[in-house]
């Protein structure tokens, strides 16, 4: 019965991980021990079989599409992690100017939204500038968003959907 140490040595010999001296020792073991020789041949056959028949994993979409989705997700996380810079003394005058502007603007916007509600609008959500992608995969369908600027196209890819 071969010990585990010898088995590891034979595997390392097959993977080319032994020094010259260790290789010579391993070869000697193979020459004198039939069990070691059989194990080595079996491991070598498996290695050849796997190398020749390795399944190529293909993406179901174009490579750029797949990696753009990952890049977009990374950028989104980086943006949310950025902290806002603290205003310096030189910005205090600008803030004093903008405070009344912002306050009256908020009041005007509230009045306008209230007018929309009175005229029969159902939505209470203000119109936000820019795209805020909020995923709500209620059916546990994994999905991600991809934007192609050259094609002026936004894609939501859902991994499961209706046939």
């Amino acid at each position, binding site marked *: 019965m071969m010990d585990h140490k010898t088995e590891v040595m034979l595997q390392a010999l097959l993977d080319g991980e032994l020094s010259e001296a260790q290789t010579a020792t391993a070869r000697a073991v193979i020459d004198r021990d039939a069990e070691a020789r059989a194990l080595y041949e079996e491991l070598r056959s498996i290695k050849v079989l796997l190398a020749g028949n390795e399944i190529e994993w293909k993406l179901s*979409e174009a490579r750029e599409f797949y990696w753009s989705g990952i890049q977009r997700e990374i950028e989104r996380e980086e943006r949310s992690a950025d902290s806002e810079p603290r205003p310096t003394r030189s910005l205090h005058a600008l803030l004093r100017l903008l405070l009344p502007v912002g306050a009256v603007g908020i009041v005007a916007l509230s009045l*306008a939204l209230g007018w929309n509600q009175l005229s029969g*609008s159902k*939505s209470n959500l203000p119109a936000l500038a820019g795209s805020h992608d909020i995923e709500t*995969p209620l059916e546990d369908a994994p*999905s991600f968003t991809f934007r192609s600027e*050259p094609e002026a196209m936004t894609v*939501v890819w859902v991994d499961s959907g209706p046939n």
Partner: protein
Amino acid sequence: MRRHFSSCRVGTAAAFFLSLWIAAVAGAADNLTLHARLIWGADRDKPSDPNMRTVEPETAGKLAKVFKWQSYYEVSRTNFTVSAGGTKKVVMSPKCDIEVEYLGASNVNVRLYGKGKMVVCKRQTISPGELAVVAGPDKNDTAWFVVLKRERK
């Protein structure tokens, strides 16, 4: 002190005109007209179903540049209008519905339903002339696409 007082007056005047402009924009009538199509993407010849037709080169070309499939066939199409704050649900196929909630200023909530169950809900922006696509894999290495296009003004 005097400089601070005059900058506040300038700010207040700017705020007054800004508030008038915001009220005018927000209160204006705002409808969203969309063209919706259910498209099937594949790498094969045109299916035998006579109701399916080849997608025009402009749209097919855009899809082909993003996705791996080279052939695109239209299953169904419909046009509809959603008012600001309103919601519209349209049937794309016996198993596929799409619902659009218009939030105003080009922002929409798009909900896709498969066999009556919501599959995904996504908030996004649809600008005139652009495409908003919800897509997913189908059997035999094909894919389905619900393509929304906003009418150019």
